[in-house]
């Protein structure tokens, strides 16, 4: 599965791999909801993702908001591939969700 929630890790990791497009949108939503409901802290890994489309971005965005509202710590694990970042920047999505989260800030450089 390109979209998974790894409960075994501590904290749990929502892992996005390959092309994440509309076909995976429903699955991604489920996985994110599962992640948000599981614990007080969740990581999101985009390291192996090669593409995100709008549906994925808006889900991540909504997840971040949801996390903030419910007091869950949601942060990136590992860097965001440059290609993803470039695509999102080009589309004016430069304020990438979690980009300002501490985990990402330290790893992005």
């Amino acid at each position, binding site marked *: 599965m390109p979209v998974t929630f790894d409960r075994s890790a501590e904290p749990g990791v929502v892992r996005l791999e390959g*092309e994440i*497009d*509309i076909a995976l*949108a*429903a699955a*991604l*939503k489920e996985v*994110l*909801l599962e992640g*948000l409901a599981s614990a007080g802290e969740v990581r999101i890994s985009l390291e192996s993702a*090669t*593409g995100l*489309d*709008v*549906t994925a*971005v*808006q*889900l991540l*965005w*909504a*997840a971040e*908001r*949801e996390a903030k509202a419910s007091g869950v710590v949601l942060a990136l694990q590992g860097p965001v*591939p*440059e*290609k993803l970042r*470039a*695509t999102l920047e*080009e*589309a*004016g*999505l*430069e*304020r990438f969700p979690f980009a300002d989260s501490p985990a990402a800030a330290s790893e992005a450089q």
Partner: protein
Amino acid sequence: MAADQDIDQFRHGFQEEARELLVELEAVLLELNERREDGELVGRVFRALHTIKGSGAMFGFDELAAFAHKLENAFDEVRKGHLAVTPDLVDLTLSALDQIRAMVEEGENDAAVDRGACAQILAKVRALTGSADTAGPGNEPDKARKATQPVTEKEAESAKPERAWRIHFAPGPELMRNGADPLLLIRELSGLGRLTAHASMAEIPAIGELEPERCYVCWEMVLVTSAGEDAIRDVFIFVEDVCELAIEPEAAEDGAIRDGATRDGAIREGAIGTGSPAATVASPEPETGAPPAVECAGDVIAKALEEKRRMAGRRATDQPETSASLRVPAARLDQLVDLVGEMVTVQARLSEIAAGSDDSEVLAVSEEIERLTSALRENSMTLRMVPIRATFERFRRLVHDLARDLGKDVELTIEGADTELDKTVIDQLGDPLMHLIRNSMDHGIESPERRAAEGKRPTAKIHLAAQHSGASVLIGVSDDGAGIDGDAVRNRAVERGLTTADAQLSEAEIFSFIFQPGFSTAKQVTDVSGRGVGMDVVRQRVESLRGSIEVASQRGQGTTVTLRLPLTLAIIDGLLVTVGEAFFVLPLASTLECIELTREDIERVNGKHMADVRGELIPYIRLRQYFAVNTPRPEREQIMVVESEEGRCGLVVDQVLGDCQTVIRNLGRLYRHVQVVSGATILGNGKVALILDPQRLVQEAVRSRMQRERVRAQGPPPNLTPNLAREQQSGVPPDGALVEIASNVGAGALASASH
């Protein structure tokens, strides 16, 4: 039910469009193969794939959309400079196009999608792009971007001056489900110039209520480009109906400032997080120069409303532009042309009746109808005229593939691609041209080593050319290969009993043997040709189009095959003439003038078949004699001077009745070998007139005269063709029997013979 039909109609529309796109794509790819660094070509490939994917998804061609999407991604990598254009990539994409074509046609024709091949192609594409991905996930994209950007900027500078456009783009709920991807659209936009985009996330609901497949994000963008509004609008062409879109120009000097303002707005917007939808629409408004957060709510709403109104207005005025051209199934056009044909025949009868009546009102109406019919006929004919470009361009692929398979280096050049021909003619041209090109590639063009040894350019050339010539179109296929070995052809013809060893044959006659069924001088049969099937097909097809073939070849220099085809198969403008009781139609386009021929004129040149036209001696053919019309010849006859490849020539007839628009009817299978007559028509008075082909008539006359002279010089050879032999003995030309039909048999008989 109606909805089903609508969908069908849309699907057909998509299929038509996809076919055209695939042809274009193929041509662009082949061009790209030659100019691998050309960023514009890469962009064109990408856009074409993008369009096929987008509209494919919209009309339910999901497999196609997914497949094209993967290819599109590969070319996106190329566009971004991550992936280089290699012959492998081009070949891979070409074979992918074949599969896409099959997906488009699936269920229609016998096209079958080879899913195994598809999977292989995708695996190879993945291998190509995958390696590019791993090559440099670091700073590569930035570098690539910098590398490609100067190209687009340079392009822009060299063209029109740049100006800034403000684009509001809000994908509706349906957009994503239709297979469109807003990010790709935006990327396409940024390909047009410098784009500053700001996405508003304000409408994204809580994750629990979020419909995963719906797009909630909307964009405000400023694009500084030299492209016009149409080009910008084209990016959204497939989603325009399912999204909110407003494109507005703004003063060019504002562009830079606005860039900054928007970016500013974006950050603020992001910081605010959950703004109202109205705020997002209005946020980049720069007129006030103030950041949107400072604006008061009333202003914001007023501006949003104004924006909406402007958008509504734009939409309304856009409507007429989109209907500038429309697609019509070819069958419907054919039906129209058929009806017009019937109308022309009936109108001819009406004119005839009106001319015989004393009623001036009937006459006036008849004349008016004649005028209208003529205009209608001309109009409907132009509807079916299409440029030959697409047919020619298709062969780039064939030449590319064959050159690779045969290990030859061949370049295809095209000339006169804008020449227009009736669609029915063009549709049937593909096969003959393909056989001619295959033949040239396989037999005509030498191996690179041999070319080098003979001091020729290593890259061989195949040249396709089209040009108008009177009522015909000449289509030439030339190569600069080895040429035809006349002796080999002759020997083979003797072996096969097509001629005798001592027969005196002109070069053209010798070359014409290659069009005999099963004729081949090839020592071994290759995959490409050599079975002796192709050229026979060429001849049959061209003749069924009432065309002719000529071959010119020079050893070591190359071969040119010229097809002469009629512009249209349906209707011609002609002159109606009589010989005795028989009616003939001469195509107006090949008729130059009409002069009188009296007995004194004939005596003056001692009975030779020559006429003095303003000091120039022109040979003539007596149709009375040629068609064996056995009625006494009138005191004054008319010479119709026609232009032929052999020069000017006269055709002697009894009377010229006047011009006529003629619907061409086939003579039927029985008379398919009669070449001097290109068809027949039914006149207003119900009689049948034969439509003459002056070109063939003159050729035939020249040929039989040369034969006669040779015969006279040598004594008759044993195997003269039966027709000629008969002519020799009786002096009666071969086509006499046909005229009896024309003068004796009524219209009904001919009409039934032609069906």
